[in-house]
């Protein structure tokens, strides 16, 4: 099905099932421990052996050799395969560093060997007996030091944001110089790790030259192709299966070492091999969100009209790596005739930087939305009013492009009302509640809505059961449930008549899970398949599909109602189709919007920052399942608290690695950090997004939260911290003397 013009009325608009808060249909399996994750799929293939991956102990250099004799002799060992045993493997989609093979060490904990044994403990113990002989080389590990030599680079994030090395509209420098009120500040964000609960894990088995990977991956079709390319085998010989995923956040967008090394190890051991990356390896072996240094300049007239806005970001990566696209939202979020955005990339020899939840916007808004707060103060304007004043309904760089639907102003105004924004003291450091200095902060949230093709197959059997098959993934987001809701709505059945099967590369290729594009596109693909199935049903029952109504398990045409199951009485009906998009995203800008509000307390003695309450008001098209969408948004808000207050991969700038590579030292929020969250969805549809009229929301939840929190800390204390995370040591010196 080609989607080229805005959606008209369609069966989804009935909203009998879609749009209603629905418990996740996979929830009972997850809460009872019966949803098998990759490492737990003991039954898929017999005789599984255990692999254990060894990471390099240097940040850069070469391996002169590796003594594996003791490891081979260790109890239970079936195979030892080292990176020196094979040539350097090719790269999969979006990989920057090589996952295995060859003598070069490009970053710390890059995989250099795998041990296969009868038990996990034997494999792990034997891995400690391997003696690598390194020839270390000097590397570059300090972004601030390398920033001076960073080069302008254009790129996209693989998740929809991006641009040229330098993009200009009008005359930024001239307008900024002439502006009556100006701001020129620099903000930094640290490296972050995804810290999803389920590690990267794979079981690999060969049958002749055919490979099956039971793994944990967000993008099945990408992965199938990447595995084939990396291993040099035909894609049709690769099957990837990933029905349950314990979080990904972008860490599992691409094929990583677990999948590739499990495949190689299974070949070497002539046994199916299962392995998981250990928590310490995840920080340095896999990808992370790169640190940024962001300079923002804003010029405005005295009444608060922005006349000039510039956002420049410098990040680092391995050679051939891409920059963090932190400036992208600044092209679209506010009006202003003169604009400059630029990205620079420094070469670093730290592990590979890549996509993490809302790449680009998440760190970009942490800078931009603090700059807006600072500018509002300079102008003597309320931060909500300043943002409303500079709202735009068109792409400021291309005014002929309107937003398909944009209600940022509605988010901010409703949020201000619900949050009690009017009670905020404009002057910082004024509100005290016992030991707490209390402050309120606001920020806009912004994330693009991406259209990407997605296919599905729907089967109707003689009992009236509908089974959907698509390689779409559920990374904890609720994909199973919204797909079931879509089928139930389209075919006029209840949810318990629908079976959803996901994550298998033998199924039609979907949008996958990334860039908050999964929900809208995957359900639109299922919609397309259902339209085709409705036609097949109508034909089988001898009715005109245009006249047929599908409701209550029946197909009704005129006065006649026939049970849906009867259409498959003579044999299963199968329909396969997908959604593809025309130029609709070119003519109109599709984005999602939020108003984030945060109240914090800052301990007057210790400067500990604790969140007191949070609110997000989101405008993101039709919300397919308010319950699971809310879960996505509060998860994003929680991650935003982490990024603002505690998350930081600490770089050892001499030895070249992320030091705090476990969850005891890389802190993310715990329950006690998140006392109260509220989410409001504006009641809206976006007919330009798809027949579902929905947009993404899973990444919108994090976009802007960190800045709202930072602004609340300023409002509480009068201390502006422009260097994330806002830990107490950055506030302590500047707090007033304790009482």
């Amino acid at each position, binding site marked *: 099905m080609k989607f080229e013009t805005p959606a008209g009325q369609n069966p989804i608009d009935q909203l009998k099932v879609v749009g209603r808060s629905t418990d996740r249909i996979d929830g009972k399996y997850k809460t009872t421990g019966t949803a098998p994750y990759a490492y737990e799929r003991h039954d898929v293939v017999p005789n599984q052996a255990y692999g254990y991956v060894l990471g390099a*102990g*240097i940040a850069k250099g070469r391996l002169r050799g590796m003594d594996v004799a003791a490891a081979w002799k260790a*109890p239970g060992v079936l195979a030892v395969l080292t990176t020196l045993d094979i040539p350097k493997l090719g790269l999969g989609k979006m990989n920057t560093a090589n996952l295995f093979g060859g003598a070069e060490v490009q970053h710390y904990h890059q995989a250099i060997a795998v041990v296969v044994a009868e038990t996990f*403990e034997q494999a*792990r*113990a034997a891995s*400690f007996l391997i003696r690598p002989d390194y020839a270390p080389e000097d590397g570059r590990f300090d972004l601030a030091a390398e920033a001076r030599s960073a080069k302008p680079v254009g790129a996209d994030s693989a998740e929809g944001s991006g641009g040229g090395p330098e993009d200009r509209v009008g005359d930024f420098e001239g307008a900024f110089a002439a502006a009556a009120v100006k701001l020129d500040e620099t903000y930094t964000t640290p490296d972050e790790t995804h810290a999803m609960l389920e590690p990267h894990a794979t079981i690999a088995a060969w049958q002749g030259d055919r490979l099956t990977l039971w793994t944990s991956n967000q993008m099945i079709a990408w992965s199938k192709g990447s595995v084939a390319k990396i291993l040099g085998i035909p894609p049709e010989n690769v099957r990837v299966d990933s029905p349950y995923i314990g979080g990904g956040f972008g860490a599992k967008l691409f094929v990583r070492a677990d999948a590739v090394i499990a495949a190689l190890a299974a070949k070497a051991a002539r046994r199916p091999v299962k392995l998981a990356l250990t928590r*310490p390896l995840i920080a340095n072996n896999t990808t992370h969100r790169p640190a940024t240094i962001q300079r923002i300049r804003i010029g405005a007239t005295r009444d608060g009209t922005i006349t000039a806005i510039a956002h420049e970001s410098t990040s680092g990566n391995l050679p051939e790596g891409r920059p963090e696209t932190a400036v992208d939202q600044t092209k679209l979020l506010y009006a202003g005739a003169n604009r400059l955005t630029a990205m620079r990339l420094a070469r670093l020899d730290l592990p590979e930087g890549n996509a993490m939840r809302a790449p680009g916007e998440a760190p970009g808004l942490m800078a931009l939305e603090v700059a807006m707060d600072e500018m509002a103060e300079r102008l003597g304007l309320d931060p909500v009013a300043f943002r409303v004043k500079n709202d735009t309904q068109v792409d400021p760089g291309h005014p002929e492009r309107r937003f398909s639907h944009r209600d940022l102003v509605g988010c901010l105004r409703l949020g201000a009302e619900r949050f009690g924004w009017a009670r905020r003291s404009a002057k910082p450091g004024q509100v005290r509640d016992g*030991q707490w200095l209390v402050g309120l902060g606001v920020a806009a949230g912004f994330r693009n809505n991406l259209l990407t093709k997605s296919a599905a197959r729907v089967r109707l059997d003689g009992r009236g059961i509908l089974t959907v098959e698509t390689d779409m993934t559920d990374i904890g987001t609720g994909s199973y449930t919204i797909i079931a809701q879509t089928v139930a709505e389209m075919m006029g059945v209840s949810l318990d008549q629908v079976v959803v099967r996901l994550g298998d590369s033998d199924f039609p290729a979907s949008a996958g899970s990334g860039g908050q594009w999964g929900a809208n596109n995957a359900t639109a693909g299922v919609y397309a398949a259902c339209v085709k199935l409705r036609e097949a049903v109508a034909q089988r029952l001898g009715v005109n599909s245009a006249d047929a109504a599908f409701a209550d398990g029946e197909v009704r045409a005129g006065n006649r109602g026939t049970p849906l199951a009867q259409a498959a009485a003579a044999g299963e009906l199968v329909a396969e189709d997908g959604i593809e998009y025309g130029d609709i995203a070119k003519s109109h800008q599709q984005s999602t919007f939020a108003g984030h509000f945060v109240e914090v307390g800052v*301990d007057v*003695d*210790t*400067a*500990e920052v*604790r969140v007191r309450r949070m609110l997000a008001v989101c405008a993101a098209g039709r919300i397919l399942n308010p319950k699971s969408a809310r879960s996505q948004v509060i998860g994003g808000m929680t991650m935003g608290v982490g990024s603002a*207050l*505690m998350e930081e991969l*600490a*770089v*050892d700038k*001499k*030895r070249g690695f992320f*030091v*705090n*590579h*476990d969850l*005891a*030292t890389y*802190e993310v*929020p*715990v*329950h*006690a*950090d998140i006392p109260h969250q509220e989410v409001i969805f504006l009641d809206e549809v976006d007919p330009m997004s798809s027949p579902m009229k929905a947009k993404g929301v899973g990444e919108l939840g994090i976009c802007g939260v960190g800045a709202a929190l930072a602004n609340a800390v300023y409002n509480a204390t009068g201390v502006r911290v422009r260097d994330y995370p806002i*830990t*107490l*040591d950055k506030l*302590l*010196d500047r707090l007033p003397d*304790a*009482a």
Partner: protein
Amino acid sequence: MKAFTYERPGTPAEAAAAVARRPGAKFIAGGTNLLDLMKLQIETPTHLVDVNGLGLDRIEPTPEGGLRIGALVRNTDLAADARVRRDYAVLARALLAGASGQLRNQATTAGNLLQRTRCPYFYDTAQPCNKRQPGSGCSAIDGVSRTLAVIGTSDACIATHPGDMAVAMRVLDATVETVDAEGSQRTIPIADFHRLPGDTPHIETALKPGELITAVTLPKPPGGAQVYRKVRDRASYAYALVSVAVVVQPDGTGRVALGAVAHKPWRLEAAEAELPRGARAVTERLLAGAKPTHENAYKLKLAERTLGAALTQARA
């Protein structure tokens, strides 16, 4: 984890003898720290002597009016004990500020005293660390050190003792009771139990090889207002950046110990004479001679302000 043998002896003296007999043997109690370290091969015991079944899990009054806490009393049970809550509130509060409910259910009194540092370099076997591998060097001194020690450090090590319980034990003047392989018993004042790193940061306590902690004894209740204040980057389930244990008497005298600033709970009785002059005077004395890194110098000010808050709370 290296393969190891395992036994469950019948008495504390047998346990001590079992460890003394076997090079590379270790006691295991709750295992909340040891097992993690074994998985990473930071600890590689060849033999584990399980002391969980030795009956060392009672809290009993002493003739002197104090409490004798068995080595195997779980953190949860100790924090919930009515006598501890009433008479040694600083200890109950310190325990509840540590770890998580699940860990406190498993962690023991003696094991808590023996928990090892959380210096990130200690946890990475590819990096030099004098504590893990004597003579290999210290990565932390010129590396990532924001959470590490500011006083009592050496050129060999700037690790901290990471615990909360021991800080309260220090302010309460606890003593550690032990038995050795010959069955002889001794008591070690808590002040002397943990060592400063010096040139031997791998030797962390006064225990001799094979010596087993049987109990920790608290003297009679100190009275006064007791406060434990733990400062951390998140609201729960995190190690302290700085912690403060205070006992303040109605006449203004009292005791102060700091956590997360040194290789041991940090207390100088001489500094307590400054209590009437306030937190700044106390911490100036207590932290005189501190040698922070540029990343952890904030701890000096944080200690002063946290002590100020704790004193205000104690006097309220």
